[in-house]
């Protein structure tokens, strides 16, 4: 193929634009995920104004990472929204992690479309620094993933997040936002850590070990979290319920 001579300046311009974009993205403010090792991989945390994805099966620590982000935000005095399309949020265990529940707007939409619309409404208000869309594990079906309108939903969500300058986290079994996501973190089932009694017997569930790698965004594509402990807890959070 013969490259016309006139295209060389165009290519140079393209390269400069690309470098400017990379510089801008690196300078983008970040919000801590609440997990230090993950923050390191993400270059400081979740990029503000971008959609972040946490994809993985149940028991992979996906919700735990999102809750850690929410806990850090509420401790700073910020307000967050949890759009719970899976209707799975357990206030007691969330409060036990340290989330200030009064600063969490909990919306329970019935499906992905309602959740995306609710996210737009919340982001339009402004002032919500973190908006979590929890699709749970039910989005594997075409209908659950947003059906034919999925592309439009993703685009509208990404634009709303960009306008609001917030962080949106999408929790799903598999990546849902795709190329419009600023960061995609894929988690696997990394294992479990038990709290032990004096006799060495397991007494309580203390934490989940994360096995995560960054598929999109972050400082290095494909970087892996070397089995970060999503725990341990000092006390079994259900001790009060016993007896």
């Amino acid at each position, binding site marked *: 193929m013969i490259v016309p001579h006139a295209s060389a300046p165009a290519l140079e311009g393209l390269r400069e634009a690309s470098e400017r974009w990379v510089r801008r993205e690196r300078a983008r403010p970040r919000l801590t995920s609440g997990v230090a090792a993950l923050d390191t991989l993400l270059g400081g945390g979740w990029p503000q104004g971008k959609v972040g994805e946490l994809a993985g099966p149940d028991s992979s620590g996906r919700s735990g990472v999102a809750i850690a982000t929410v806990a850090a935000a509420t401790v700073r005095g910020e307000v967050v929204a949890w759009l719970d399309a899976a209707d*799975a949020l357990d206030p*007691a265990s969330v409060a036990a992690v340290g989330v200030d529940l009064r600063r969490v707007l909990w919306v329970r939409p019935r499906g992905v479309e309602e959740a995306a619309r609710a996210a737009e409404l919340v982001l339009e208000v402004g002032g919500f620094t973190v908006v979590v869309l929890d699709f749970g594990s039910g989005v594997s079906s075409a209908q659950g993933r947003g059906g034919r309108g999925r592309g439009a939903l993703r685009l509208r969500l990404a634009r709303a997040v960009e306008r609001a300058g917030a962080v949106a986290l999408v929790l799903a079994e598999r990546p849902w936002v795709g190329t419009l996501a600023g960061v995609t973190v894929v988690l696997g089932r990394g294992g479990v850590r038990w709290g032990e009694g004096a006799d060495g017997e397991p007494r309580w569930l203390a934490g989940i070990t994360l096995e995560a790698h960054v598929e999109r965004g972050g400082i290095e594509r494909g970087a892996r979290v070397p089995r970060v402990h999503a725990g341990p807890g000092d006390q079994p959070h259900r001790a009060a319920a016993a007896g």
Partner: protein
Amino acid sequence: MRTASLWVPDFPLQALRRSTPELAEAPLAVAAGPLPRDLIVCVAAEAAELGVRAGMTAAQARQVAPATLVRVTPEAAAAAADEALADVAGGFSPRVRRHTPGEVLLDAGGLVPRFGSEQAIAHELLRACRRVGLEARVGIAAGVGVARTAARSGELVVVRAGEEQAFMAPLPLVLLKPPPDLAAMLARWGLATAGELARLPRREVALRLGPGGVALHRLACGEETVAFVPDPRREVLREGVELDFPLGVLEPFLFLTSGILSRLEQRLELRGEGFSEVLLELHLEGGGHRECRLKLVAPTREVPAVLALARLQLEASPPGTPVEGVAALVTPGRVRLAQGSLFGPAMPAPGKLSTALARLAALVGPDRVGAPAVPDTHRPGAWGVLPFAPAPSQGASPPAASPEPQAFTSPVLRAFRPPRQAQVVAVGGRPVVARVDGTGGMVVGWAGPYRFVGDWWGDESCAREDFDVATEDGSLLRVYFDRLERRWFADGIYD
């Protein structure tokens, strides 16, 4: 005391046109009742041009000008217009008195520093009246009687302090609204103006006309005649409309309702409040009655959000019979205002947040929006929802209060609602196999049991043994053995 009188001339006519905007240009005559012999009480300018006059019977009006529309003002429309007038006054002063239908008095003392002058107060009152669909007149004076008379003498009349008698003197006695027998007596005496009456000795007037005559004489002299006693503040606003033809389709009904809600929204704005709860009363064909209660998650003045809620509720349970009339009763709520912290994180604007909450409630249902809450109980899995009203942050939290970024304090449960039945094999009280909906398998790690017995004093007694189990496929489940049902369930999965 400086008193302002807001008076709406031809009140029945204006109330009718306000509730039925399509009659705005029509040659309208308002009758006292529905019968042909009932008298016409108000005539629109369009009907007056055709020769219709107040005092005719309805039959005569139709005979004189067949194009005239003779209507009776529904009580609901008159009441709503009267309340709207009171709301206008309430937007200026907390001391308001509804004197007669279409006339409201308010304490104008102390308002000058806010508006600059009493003329400006009167202008603002007239403007506020126009916003709620009423063309009023304003009179401001010292005392109720003079203020009322001033409102009837011109569109905007301010009587300066000390000039009451001079103002009253040239006015015709009919403006003082004397009782008919008294008016006849004064006419026989040859008195035509207030000044002529004021020149008579009060003692002689009292001897001949009694207490009514003295009150009229005092008014003619520009003196205080009636004490101003403000009404208690009303807590529910009402607007309604009766239809000529019943409506059986939702869309036109919502269009009609949007007009009613818009009028209420204007009144709420005057009060600085928003819709907190709306009760739609539907008058059905055949005399039936139906109520539709709309609870807003947070007070808002956003009519589309309230309409969306009404649409959801009526679509879910339609009345089944055409609607002949509708009234909306609004419980006002203070729209949340909060001063954000200069040094704290940005917070959602209260007004925008209220509207968004109302829209979210319309989208997903009002019981599915709020702040999560943990009820005061030891029962596992208990949860609740509270209204979402975050307090403004007072500033950045000290770093010491931040959670350790390295770790969570506890695993997070994804709850199953309701709990799902689990297949669990237990040996010696320990689960060895646990499966829920195809997830799980051999148990490779477990903790428990966490025993709970409670609520035995009520209908929902509970006795269970909870286990956290890790299965061979990597799932982390919370399962429990229900000792009352003798079965295993799963509460959720850790994630």
